[in-house]
């Protein structure tokens, strides 16, 4: 299609005439045919590997939104086309996929990556190529030392950071359960940085960290950590383990009978992981995020109807799926506003944009640090829940939390 021919044969000329006639006869048909040059978005999701469990919601959020956009006529008369890249949950593969999507598939934008390690791996590629990356996951916040994974003018954050996800609820948990917190997390950037942010607020409120441990990935047995938690006389476990480790730790904490007198607050275990834990293990624990399937929001009802119609009545979505959904819609809005797909124009249009139909209520993208302004919910897991519909009891809800300014050289 891109090839040009130096010589126009008679046959080609005739075709051209026929085409022109057809164009006059049926303009709508031709518009569609012309519009077939799609806007390509490369989506990098963890479809295999350790974080496969999150991958499904991650990818389907974006897919659902793109379906809606295309059904409504696309953007600037052009449809959006997704090109998938499987991250295999490995930062190394993320780099390969990002390069492939940009150089071979010639995508116009990138969306996705899941963990902070994956996003940080994509950062240099994004910076070099001058493309945008739309990042959907709850994460540790931006700080200049992790550039270009964060504080990168090419990356937009659609998930909450700790001053949104964690800070609003520290006071409540301390008043209800006590001041002695034990911090446990997986051994990588997200838990360590999240805990750093957590402690800022926690110390200000007079809390005491009685232990802080980081666990290597794929640790099957937790006896020694559980003993440390008990010996430290912890009143609350602040939990940022991920993947199967979170399930393994929490099952063993429950089996050791420690759920009875120690509260647990997780900033990781959304609908998918809590489903995997089952009702006995998860009962009574706290979870905080910007979105839950059960939040009472008119937008959310409409969103879930569409989601379930497409993926089945039992399909699960979560904060990341919704982050991807918002990312796709806000990208389309930004392209429409910019009237073009080139990076600089879309970047300027996306900053300051508000998406009114976001499932968690209107979401605004801050222009100076590319951080979404989001709600924050603290939920407690109900006893004997049977599914996502009765899993969480709402404890605290803040409709819109402005995060602290990113610790970057601002504006990005």
């Amino acid at each position, binding site marked *: 299609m891109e090839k040009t021919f130096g010589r126009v044969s008679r046959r080609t000329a005739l075709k051209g005439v026929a085409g022109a006639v057809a164009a006059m006869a049926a303009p709508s048909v031709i518009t569609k045919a012309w519009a077939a040059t799609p806007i390509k978005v490369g989506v990098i999701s963890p479809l*295999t*590997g*350790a974080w*496969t*469990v999150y*991958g*499904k919601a991650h990818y389907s959020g974006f897919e659902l939104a793109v379906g809606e956009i295309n059904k409504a006529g696309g953007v600037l008369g052009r449809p959006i086309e997704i090109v998938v890249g499987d991250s295999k949950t490995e930062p190394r593969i993320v780099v390969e996929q990002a390069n492939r999507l940009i150089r071979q598939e010639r995508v116009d934008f990138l969306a996705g990556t899941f963990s902070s390690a994956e996003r940080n791996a994509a950062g240099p590629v994004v910076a070099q190529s001058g493309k945008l990356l739309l990042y959907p996951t709850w994460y540790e916040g931006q700080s200049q030392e992790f550039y270009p994974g964060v504080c990168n003018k090419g990356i937009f954050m659609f998930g909450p950071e700790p001053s949104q996800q964690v800070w609003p609820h520290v006071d409540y948990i301390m008043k209800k359960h006590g001041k002695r917190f034990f911090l446990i997390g997986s*051994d990588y950037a997200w838990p360590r940085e999240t805990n750093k942010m957590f402690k800022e607020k926690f110390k200000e409120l007079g809390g005491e960290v009685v232990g802080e*441990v*980081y*666990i*290597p990935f*794929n*640790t*099957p*047995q937790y*006896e*020694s*950590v559980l*003993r*440390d938690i008990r*010996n430290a006389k912890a009143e609350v476990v602040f939990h940022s383990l991920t993947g*199967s480790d*979170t*399930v*393994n730790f929490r*099952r*063993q904490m429950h*089996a*050791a*009978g*420690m759920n009875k007198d120690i509260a647990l607050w997780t900033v990781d275990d959304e609908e*998918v*992981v809590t*489903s*995997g*834990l*089952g009702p*006995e*293990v998860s009962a009574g624990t706290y979870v905080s995020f910007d979105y839950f399937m059960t939040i009472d929001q008119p937008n959310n009802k409409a969103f879930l109807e569409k989601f379930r119609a497409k993926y089945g009545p039992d399909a*699960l979505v979560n904060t990341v799926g919704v982050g991807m959904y918002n990312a796709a819609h806000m990208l389309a809005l930004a392209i429409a506003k910019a009237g073009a797909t080139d990076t600089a124009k879309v970047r300027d249009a996306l900053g300051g944009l508000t998406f009114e139909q976001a499932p968690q209520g209107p979401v605004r993208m801050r222009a100076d640090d590319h951080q979404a302004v989001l709600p924050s919910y603290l939920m407690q897991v109900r006893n004997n829940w049977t599914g996502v519909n009765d899993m969480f009891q709402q404890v605290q809800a803040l409709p819109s939390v402005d995060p602290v300014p990113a610790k970057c050289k601002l504006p990005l």
Partner: protein
Amino acid sequence: MGSFAGVLIDATLITLVLALAATGLAVVFGLIGVVNMGHGAFLTLGAYFTWAGIQAGLPFLIAVVLSALGVGLIGLILELVLIRHFYDRPFETLLLTWGMFLVVTELIKIVFGTDFRNVPSPLPGTLSMGDIQIPAYRLAVSLFTIVLLFGLAGLLFHTSVGLRVRALVQQQESAALLGLNVERLYRQVFTLGAALAGLAGALISPMLSIDPYIGNVFLVRSFFVVTLGGLGQILGGTVVGSFIIGGSETLFALFSSQVVAQTIVFALAIVLLRFRPTGLLGSDRR
């Protein structure tokens, strides 16, 4: 102070659960020398079969037995179709079984999906000893592991089947010349190893998250256990290896962080293997 007893109990439980996970590999790798990278997949299958059994309304123990038999059957089929052609080629076996692992993992994803599954614990409570609380189910599984290991050792050293296996391990050619059906024996041992891995996966399923990669957590550790304990040392080797790879981590974690403890453990394993290449309890006959 109850904490010393606590550490001891923790170390014992960790050792025995790891020993259970490694037993199938101790049989397959330790006795007939198949470098079975598919061991992790067998564990995973055992866990998923148990979950499926529970979903179908079976009592836990029945589901466990059926899982072990089911994985044993899959092991038998794989032996018949693939493994038996590769007994004299260890390196190809490694690649072959790694391929098996990849295929089985993907099949699990297709059949069971990628969501976390869970099997409720059949013994949810804890037992208190002074101020130490022991999870009842873990204790039961640990006790069962002791029985299982002694049973296997008994099978190997006090039955005619065991005699034949040992003959095979020590002198394959002479054993064949003396009329031993080598091919059939290999098949039986491999099937037993697969069934044991399935059994381990089934019994471990209530403690861990069931996802397509549950077996991976134990794969590398199991290889360390078997190599470190000594090939062919089913009882002593598995327990000693499991203690060093699993239980000792608890002790190191007393003085350092978890990350450092795991690093020390694996570094220690490498150092030990440098000076005892046949494993701590392995004889020097090879």
